[in-house]
């Protein structure tokens, strides 16, 4: 299987504070990896290193240039980054996912706008393209940001805590959508909710300063302890039974 990127003994830090240390991590085409770990453990930092927002302090990250040339990474940040009251339409937000190939003189062509309309329909947001975010529900807002992440048809999709805003009615649709997208792109999903995501992902990466890859979607508390990855389990509703064998 073709790899998308690989990290070699990579470290990242904010000033003197080392957040990721000696990480070796490879992501292949069509992977679907749940990134878990405690708060402040470096999950978001991992995504930011992949996006090039943070330069590694040590080590390196090597991208597969054939599969991942620049515009081939889609990113769904934690919901708090955009201003929900900003006067910008749903269609324009989704179009911003195409900015990477454009440079700053950017004009959106008719085919770009058609693409945005398709994404809007695909995500069940038909008829809302001229609305602002503050007129939508939490689940709809999340779909807009997902649309922005996938409009460029990326080869790699990074999701940062997508569960935070998803309402339960949309949750199943959302994961179903991800399963469908996974056929054409690898997905790295940061989440607190180990229980819910384990039913949908293919493997885990436990991040707590170091990174341990777990090549299965089943994970036990023993595994987590062995990885030095203390996680508070949040479960709501019916948890898929494959999830976690509880430690006594």
């Amino acid at each position, binding site marked *: 299987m073709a790899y998308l990127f690989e990290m070699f003994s990579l470290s990242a830090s904010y000033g003197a504070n080392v957040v990721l240390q000696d990480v070796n991590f490879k992501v292949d085409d069509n992977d679907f990896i749940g990134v878990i770990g405690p708060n402040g453990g470096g999950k978001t930092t991992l995504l930011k290193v992949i996006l*090039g927002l943070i330069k590694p302090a040590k080590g390196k990250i090597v991208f597969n240039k054939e599969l991942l040339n620049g515009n081939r990474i889609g990113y769904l940040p934690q919901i708090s980054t955009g201003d929900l009251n900003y006067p910008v339409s749903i269609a324009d937000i989704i179009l911003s996912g195409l900015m990477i190939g454009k440079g700053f003189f950017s004009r959106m062509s008719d085919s770009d706008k058609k693409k945005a309309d398709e994404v809007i329909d695909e995500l069940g947001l038909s008829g809302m393209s001229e609305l602002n975010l503050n007129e939508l529900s939490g689940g709809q807002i999340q779909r807009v940001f997902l649309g922005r992440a996938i409009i460029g048809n990326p080869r790699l999709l990074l999701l940062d805590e997508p569960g935070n805003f998803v309402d339960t009615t949309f949750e199943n649709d959302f994961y179903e959508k991800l399963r469908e997208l996974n056929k054409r792109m690898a997905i790295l999903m940061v989440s607190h909710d180990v229980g819910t995501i384990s039913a949908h992902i293919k493997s885990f990466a436990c991040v707590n300063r170091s990174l341990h890859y777990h090549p299965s979607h089943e994970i036990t508390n023993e595994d987590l302890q062995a990885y030095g990855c203390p996680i508070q389990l949040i479960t709501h509703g019916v948890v898929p039974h494959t999830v976690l064998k509880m430690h006594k």
Partner: protein
Amino acid sequence: MEANIFQYEFVIRGLLGAVFASITAGLAGTYVVSKRMVFLSGGITHASFGGIGIGYFMGINPVLGAAVFGILSALGVEYLSVKQRIREDSAIGILWAFGMAIGIIFIYMTPGYTPNLMSYLFGSILTVSNADIIALGIMSLILIFYFGIFYRTILYISFDEVFARTYSSYVDMFKYITTSLIALTIVLNIRMAGVVLVISLLTIPPNIAMLFTRVYFKIVLWSVITGFVGTATGYVISYYAGIPTGATIIFTLVIIWVLVKGTIHILEQLARSDSSRHLSQSELK
């Protein structure tokens, strides 16, 4: 005859001033209001008063001093907020008062009478020179081209800076340029509305516009239109009533805002009672 020529010139200058003020304030103001940097803009305005004071003291054009102070304080606050080493609102608050303090000290030390000081504080169309109008006109052109050419880039950076950084390495550059242009816009409009009131010239028109539309470029258009109506009306009233221009303009704009907001509210109430009447009628049937 001479009075007529004077009046003609005066009307033209006032009209052009109103047009350029509403264009610059509309473009800059929509950005300021959307990005919630009204307080920052207030800080820049008052900090630039320090430049006015130093300008008086050194015998150079106070607007030039204000421009230097305005841009430097704008860049300073942006830089601090990028570095995130200090609370931004506190930094702005300090800058705000510090600029005023410098201005007051230097004006006090300037020997003799300082003409037009009141016009810088409260705005006066009477003291606006042809050079001021030309500067505002050039600023209008710069802003129209800048926002026109880089519309999406500016819009997306100000909407979601974190995401913009994933595709562009020019985010900070655009932030610095845009904030500098806003500082310049504020300084050039100080002649019209005065240090104390100019921020309202930027913030009231977009807020009136947002009562009609939530689309960014339409907010700009409506801001320019309402800004022009408010500025021109305020200008005429201030001329005939002999009261300060800046205060009259802001007063007029607030009245427009209240009237529009009130009208929309009443219309909504009417629509609601209308639909509930329809509802009860259909219930009767």
